[in-house]
């Protein structure tokens, strides 16, 4: 053992096998583990015991910021800092200020959704032990991987391997750090 071990990686050929394996790993009480799939598998969040994603909150805050910014900006620019009288209309009206504020709501809401997603996923992260593994390249092709990290307090090389084998994996290997 000269290189440090990141975790144990089990390969599955169908989404159903990976999902059953995930249910077993979840029920065994592991915490630092993950399933890697070429496409989102319907029902996998439940099989892994994941809660609803928090991305929505980031987007909500972004959207609120956008709308408030739009309204305050237009009020300050056209009614306070540089008054422009147009056809006897009020200096500030929420109706004419609505379209730009609406667009800013969407713009900052989208920034929030994408920024929140990247923040929650800790991306971009260009160096990852799994990305160095040759076999793991199939995770974007047509294979499904369950990886349990050595950092998990329940990790035990022999027992964990047995668990993943019992779930139907034909190919299990250790991944170097």
């Amino acid at each position, binding site marked *: 053992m000269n290189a440090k071990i990141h975790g144990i990686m089990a390969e599955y*050929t*169908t*989404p*159903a*096998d990976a*999902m059953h394996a995930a249910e077993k790993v979840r029920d065994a009480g592991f915490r630092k583990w*993950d*399933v*890697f*799939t*070429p*496409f*989102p*598998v*319907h029902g*996998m*969040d439940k099989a892994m015991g*994941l809660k609803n*994603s*928090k*991305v*929505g909150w980031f*987007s909500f805050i972004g*959207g609120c910021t956008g709308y408030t910014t739009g309204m305050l900006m*237009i009020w300050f*620019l*056209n009614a306070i*800092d*540089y008054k422009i009288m*147009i056809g006897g209309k009020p200096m500030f*009206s929420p109706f*004419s200020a609505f*379209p*730009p504020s609406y*667009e*800013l709501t*969407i*713009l900052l*809401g*989208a920034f929030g*959704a*994408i920024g*929140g*997603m*990247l923040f*929650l*996923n800790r*991306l*971009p*992260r*260009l*160096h*990852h032990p799994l*990305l160095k593994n040759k076999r793991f*390249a*199939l*995770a*974007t*092709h*047509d294979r499904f991987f369950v990886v349990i990290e050595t950092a998990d307090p329940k990790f035990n090389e022999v027992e964990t391997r047995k668990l993943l084998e019992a779930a139907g994996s034909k190919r299990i290997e250790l991944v170097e750090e």
Partner: protein
Amino acid sequence: MASDATATALPTVPKELERIPLVSNNRSPGWISDRVAGICEGKTPAWWWAAFIPSLILAGVLLCMLAYQISTGVGVWGNHHPTAWAWDIINFVWWIGIGHAGTLISAILFLLRQKWRTGVNRAAEAMTIFAVMCAGIFPAIHVGRVWFDWFLFPIPNSNSIWPQFRSPLMWDVFAVSTYFTVSLLFWYVGLVPDLAVMRDRAKSKIRQFLYGLFSLGWTGSNRHWSNYEKAYLILAGLSTPLVLSVHSIVSLDFAVSQVPGWHTTIFPPYFVAGAIFSGFGMVLTLLVPLRRWCHLEDIITMRHIDVMCKVTLATGSIVGYAYIMELFISWYSGSPFERFAFLNRIKGPYAWGYWCMMGCNVILPQLFWSKKIRENLWIVFIISILVNIGMWFERFVIIVISLHRDFLPSNWAYYLPSPVDILTYLGTFGLFFTLFLLFMRFLPMIAISEVKGVTPHADPHTVEGGAKGGHH
């Protein structure tokens, strides 16, 4: 024994109720990666060069025309008094309308759970982005002194003045720039998992590095997919009101004014329907040949072509209804100026433009009621081009015909475009096709992971997905 369990656990669908699959020939996820990524790998096909070189030359023509126009002034165009808006604004509205189909496919059909969208959404979104780029050129240059374009944005400046936000033209600045930014981000977010596919297949160091860099270190982790899918759903939910607002605001550029023929409340929904109509025309123009040249018949199936023809028919009929309603209202309004504006369209000096629009947008798409016609790719291709010609004439009718005979007959004039107008417009096609061809050569033009996700292989509850019966 295992087969018995399968037979009892999985419900069987009667033959006549079976749906046409989204991916033909029961292709596996691996096959989808290989076929789609294969377009970006290997030798560049001859047809690609044959399309790319003329496009690049046309893009060069655009550059020359822009340089000439910017250095000389807008006088090089055919615009005159009273036709102060002409091809510049026609082309702006036309291109931005084309973009709308991409967002409709990527966002609205996603919310409506129309799974067939996965086969066409990537290419349609790319079309949106490139179309909005072409559109953006026109308002930027039609101001004449392009070096003052930054006046449009609320940037503190030494004159201590600010833009005037009660003008729909200012709303347009916000709508179009938000539309471009959000479309680009939506497209990129969708690309991330597919860039990871390209990274993992890449043979050369440069490809590995670039695809690796832009895939942001995507691993396909389910914890990531969970946040990713939520973000994608929210982006779809935000893009839907966005796309409806963009062309509504574009229509307000006209409707808020008092020009007869422009000052109507029907404009926002009518513009949005027309935009989606022309956009689907462009999607069909692009994908009917590409599915053949790139051998994508199993992913962009005849069912995809069929539903897109039906969307074209539906939106074309809405547009036709709007045209007729406009005529009715101009008569019913009792306003002599409104009545004149519409009679001038029907039998004035530009009647040929009006009837060209009517023929291409209202009558021709009605052919799509016939299943035989929807299945004939040559006819579909030709109609899709005529739809776009018709939609160009719609904007010509609205802008030029309404302006060329305004309130004072002594003002009236006949508008003709200058060669610079025509070459600038043709040049934008060069830019559009150059960008589109580069896109399809270097980026996966089909959403690989999304298409995989709609095959039976991806569903853990089917035999292909590995279901063995039991508690599921």
